[in-house]
């Protein structure tokens, strides 16, 4: 007798086209033939036969088959044979407000009411913990308390990496063999990723110095030379000038990428930590980044006290 037990509602990461699965009860051998499979299904195949109670992890089985078969998603390739990341992308989460899981909360301006409340979010930090060093806890608390005056985003300052990726505005990747340019709608922020031999950052900057290379179908970007002036979000999560970010962009379907970033900063955190999120392609016709030059919207905040006459409104 063969039983099948599995986690109810287990969702496959991609479709499975299994050609043939055969079980030979006389020797308890299981064979899989052909097809494209994926390795992350967590059902267990429990058999109660003459072989005794054998709990087989199906993932291991599929991993064997996968080794000889293709990976889950084969991305479209550019003319020079690399995964094609060209396009307009955007994160669909509220990480810019707070990268950790958070409930909805009132915003800073009661008269702007529901429009400018803080929306909830399930967060993008793996494990939901940010390992601040004990000595850094006070600064984090201070930032959080002063979030509506001290956040550099308020002043339309360049957002740095990785925050630029999950600001609630689109960005565009233009991919050539030697250089991958990422243009962010917000504040005209831009980065160029050098796909040649890695070089050290000649100087610190807001958007950092990016060296990229391919690992299989993943674009890996090593970012150094970041200054200490950006935050990770509006909730005051911060870093030092020693910040080192390694990003991974992996196509997961025709219109989505999986984005992961490892954050390392021994001055602020006791160990590296990771964020991850999908990025979604803008598929509407004639999608376009528009100008979002927010400097003039920040001038009252930055220079208002230096006016000849204060603003009446």
């Amino acid at each position: 007798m063969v039983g099948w037990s599995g986690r109810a509602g287990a969702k496959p990461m991609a479709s499975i086209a299994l050609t043939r699965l055969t079980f030979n009860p006389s020797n308890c051998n299981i064979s899989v033939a052909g097809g494209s499979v994926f390795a992350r299904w967590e059902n267990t195949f429990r058999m109660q036969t003459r072989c005794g109670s054998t709990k087989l992890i199906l993932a291991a089985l599929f991993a064997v088959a996968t080794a000889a078969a293709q990976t889950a998603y084969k991305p479209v390739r550019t003319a020079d044979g690399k995964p094609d990341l060209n396009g307009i992308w955007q994160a669909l989460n509220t990480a810019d407000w707070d990268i950790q899981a958070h409930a909805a909360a009132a915003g800073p301006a009661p008269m702007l009411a529901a429009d400018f409340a803080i929306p909830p979010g399930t967060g993008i930090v793996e494990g939901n913990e940010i390992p601040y060093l004990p000595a850094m806890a006070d600064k984090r608390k201070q930032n959080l308390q002063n979030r509506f005056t001290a956040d550099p985003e308020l002043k339309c300052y360049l957002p740095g990496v990785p925050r630029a990726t999950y600001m609630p505005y689109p960005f565009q990747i233009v991919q050539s063999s030697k250089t991958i340019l990422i243009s962010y709608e917000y504040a005209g922020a831009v980065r160029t990723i050098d796909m040649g031999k890695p070089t050290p950052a000649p100087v610190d900057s807001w958007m950092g110095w990016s060296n990229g290379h391919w690992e299989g179908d993943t674009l890996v970007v090593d970012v150094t030379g970041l200054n200490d002036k950006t935050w990770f979000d509006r909730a005051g999560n911060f870093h030092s000038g020693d910040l080192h970010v390694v990003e991974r962009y992996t196509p997961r379907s025709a219109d989505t990428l999986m984005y992961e970033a490892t954050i390392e900063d021994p001055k602020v955190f006791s160990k590296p930590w990771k964020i991850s999120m999908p990025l979604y392609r803008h598929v509407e016709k004639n999608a376009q980044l528009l100008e979002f030059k927010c400097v003039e919207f920040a001038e009252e905040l930055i220079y208002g006290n230096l006016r000849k006459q204060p603003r009446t409104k």
Partner: protein
Amino acid sequence: MSKRFFEAASGTLIAAAAAIVLLSPAPAAAQTSSTGLLTKEGAKPYTPPRTPDGKPDLQGIYSNASVVPLERPKDLGSKEFFTKAEADAYEKAQMSRHEVVAPGTYGDVHYNMQQFGLEKGQTKVAETIRTSIIVGPEGRVPPPLPAAQARQAARQAAAKGHEFDGPENRGLSERCILWPNEGPPMLPEGYNSNLQIVQGEGYVAIMQETIHDVRMIPTDGRPHLPADVHQLLGDSRGHWEGNTLVVDTTNYTDRTAFRGSSENLHVVERFTRTDPDTVKYEFTVSDPSTWEKSWSGEYLMTKIDGPIFEYACHEGNYGMHNNLSGARAEEAKKAQK
């Protein structure tokens, strides 16, 4: 500024001094015309390499620093071209000019550009025998139409006496919103006059170092944005004509005010690679609300090693703070008297 910046800057200074390259003079059989620049090999045509997806490859990091100004100096009248010898002498003179840094001068109060490798003589410029970027017998921006003159006069009248009231009274460049070199048309800037071209499927991206704006130009034939959407850099659409990228830009704001233009500004640019290190850049400017006829210019962009540095203008805008607080201090002083 960090120590690393000084090291990088002095490295650049030394490298730049060694790297000032003058394109070799063309042979006597070289072709010149009122719409052409002298090319290295004269009339020899050049077939540019292609990107993997088959488009002419314009990519690279370039300097568009120029030894000649946008408008022809008045004393040159209708002389559109130098002789080769005159051009060499003119370039030599321009490249050896140093900022005056005597106490109290702009160079003293601002900073000594040469110290940071920011003088023209420390950059790479492309050769030209033209006497100005603007082509034609006049070589100057045409006079504005009467309505445009009235518009500009009204603007100046409204601004008079309020120059330091607040940030909005300062120019777009001082506010780090838009710099005059950005255009389009893209023009040489005082220093770090660099740009980078990256091509991906269906797009040409042009990033100008000052002030890090990216012009994202689709080449898929889509229409412009609706007419009531205005952008400081306008809205650009590109297409290929043989080996030339042609870019059409509309949808400007009336604040862009390129040489006094209105929101009806319309610019057409042409980018053509003429040799492995050079891209010819041509532009035509028209605005029926400002000029009776269109006017054109051209120059060569020359490849540099780079890199493009981050010009975080707004983030480092101490100038705005200092100008406004200085004006308030002056007023307070006057009020006390």
